[in-house]
């Protein structure tokens, strides 16, 4: 029945079945089924799809990750998010190459506070006459890069520290967790602002490093918690009994099983980092003025807002909001797919 390469396929499927049954039962008790999500399928009605048969197949051929992918594809909002996110990523990659306006050629606005949207400038222009559409397209690259790469740094650091602390325990755990405690106690925005202002120097790469190196504690805590419980699992004992090395147990046996919540947390971290970068650059603490990110594009928009010039602030902000909503949808889908027991 079970796949010998992956001792958790069977547990996973059984857990999923149990969770689904529980949910169906509690739903039935509380309210009459309505809507697509709550629809109750009577598997015993003649001609209805047989739930057991479906899982019989799953047991035969699907791995943990294949099951997760299938659950993810069924998540409608996550698919919407994925489409929007891919679109934005595409804009970030090819946008600056094919952009319709010259980046350095600033034509000058014909009225104070910038021109309203027109056929020539679909998103209007800034006070200096810069095209806002061009700002949004160029800003995508830096905003997405900051979000993506600092997420990867935070993920790497978090997994490393969390697994070391969780696997070895004792004084390693104690020492590392004190560091985490300190980083958690200092209000995050405080330390980010100081670091960005004094050490960022307007460089994209240093901002990425700052965001990444300051946001890993959250992930480290998650990884540590999973390690602490999985360390006692039977399959780890089995691996240890046959003489598998510590390193291999930690990274080949425990880590893959702890990865679900981590991936979800990393996705949500990327979303919040994009907002954070926007705010830091909005305060002129982040990206230099010679480069463009979404937050940077908003930096002087507040003064223009007072003149009734809404487009300068509106469109870059919409770009941030859309991307972040998309990423959060993806994160939600991933949570349902990878971590079905915790439904927030």
């Amino acid at each position, binding site marked *: 029945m079970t796949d010998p390469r992956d001792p958790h396929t069977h547990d996973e499927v059984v857990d999923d079945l149990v969770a689904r049954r529980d949910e169906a039962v509690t739903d039935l008790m509380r309210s009459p089924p309505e809507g697509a999500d*709550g629809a109750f399928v009577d598997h015993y009605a003649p001609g209805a799809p047989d739930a057991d048969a479906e899982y019989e197949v799953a047991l035969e051929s699907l791995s943990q990750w294949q099951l997760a992918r299938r659950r993810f594809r069924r998540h409608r909002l996550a698919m919407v998010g994925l489409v929007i996110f891919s679109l934005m990523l595409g804009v970030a990659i090819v946008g600056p190459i094919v952009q319709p306006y010259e980046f350095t050629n600033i034509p000058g606005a014909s009225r104070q506070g910038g021109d309203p949207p027109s056929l020539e400038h679909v998103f209007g222009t800034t006070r200096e006459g810069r095209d806002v559409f061009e700002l949004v397209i160029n800003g995508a690259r830096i905003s997405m890069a900051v979000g993506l790469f600092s997420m990867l740094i935070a993920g790497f650091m978090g997994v490393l520290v969390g697994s070391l602390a969780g696997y070895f325990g004792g004084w390693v755990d104690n020492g590392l967790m004190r560091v985490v405690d*300190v980083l958690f106690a200092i209000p995050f925005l*405080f330390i980010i602002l100081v670091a960005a202002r004094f050490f960022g120097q307007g460089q994209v790469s240093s901002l990425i490093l700052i965001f990444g190196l300051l946001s890993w504690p959250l992930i480290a805590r998650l990884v540590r918690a999973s390690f602490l419980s999985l360390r006692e699992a039977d399959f780890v004992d089995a691996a240890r009994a046959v003489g598998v090395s510590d390193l291999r147990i930690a990274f080949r046996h425990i880590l893959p099983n702890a990865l679900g919540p981590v991936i979800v947390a990393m996705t949500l971290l990327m979303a919040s980092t994009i907002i954070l970068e926007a705010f830091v650059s909005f305060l002129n603490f982040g990206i230099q003025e010679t480069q463009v990110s979404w937050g940077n594009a908003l930096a002087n928009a507040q003064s223009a807002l007072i003149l*009734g010039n809404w487009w300068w602030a509106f469109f870059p902000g919409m770009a941030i909001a859309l991307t972040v909503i998309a990423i*959060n949808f993806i994160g939600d889908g991933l949570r349902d797919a990878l971590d079905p027991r915790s439904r927030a």
Partner: protein
Amino acid sequence: MVQYIIRRVAQAIPVLFLIAVVSFMLMMAAPGGPQAQFNQNPRISQDAIDRYMARWCLERNPDLLASLRSFGGWLGVWNCDEGGFFSDQGMPNFLPEFLGGGDNGLLHLDLGLSMSTNRPVLDLIVERMPATFILMGTAFLIWVTFAILLGVTAAVKRYSLFDQSVTLLSYIFYSLPTFWLGLILIFIFAVVLGWLPAQGIVPTRGPTFNSSAYWTAFHQAPLTHILDMGRHLILPVATLVAVNIAADSRFVRSSMLDTLGQDYVRTARAKGLPRQRVVFRHAFRNALLPIITAVTLEIAFLFSGAIVTETIFSWPGMGRLYIDGINNRDYFLVMGIVLIGSVFVVTMNIVADVVYAIADPRIRY
């Protein structure tokens, strides 16, 4: 219980010490070093700078020992005037003043002097606190109340139209950048409609908030001043509420769903108790446990969470003070705010644990 509290406080002390180390190192490592702030102010004489540096044991190019000395001076362990661990009265410097200790450093509630304003850091912080607490307190009460109402209703009517709209709206508001939402609200309600003031806590022409002139005027006509402040509060509070209610209502909903699915809820319904009563007596009261913890932890960030909103609305609170401090390279001010903010977080963490232990009789401590 008392023992538990003492243990938690004792555990917090090394964390607080490490926080002090981190914030001190950040400032010392910042380009320009501790005297960078003087570059911003050409009117300060060289003599005044030297006296200031000596007062805080600061040096121009400190080696490791010199840095340790100035950290000790900031902490209050080291006596900067004499240069030693002992105060002028010959007692250890870290003791309180009335026991013969020194008068410098954190341990003597002296956070240093803000160079850009030439005033003690602690005075500045205390002066700005009321504005932040008025803003955050109002917003906090509103968002917690509505988050609980929305979350519980959404959980009870799971998958209904109401639940799904709350879910969708909370997703959208959760994803909006706070500062951008603030800008849009200013544009709509202050610029286009002209209903509400866009900036500040008091009218720009009147006396500044929390000055003595303001309070005299306040005592002459309290109601007008309160109403006026209310008008100034609406937009920033709306911004804060919109973003925070999104996350919190989701949390209340999921915690409520957890308890609604418990066996004792099913049993209570099966016994024939009315649905309303089961929802509030059995499910809600138990769902409150994690909510209380989460809300207590949120209070910790009321202090720092206002940075974004205060910047957008020119609110004269702690957040703006912090940003100004960074811009002026006013290191003692920045260190002081970071430290007080962290002490607040650590304290509320302990309070959350204690409240949880009191609220949940199952907890053994």
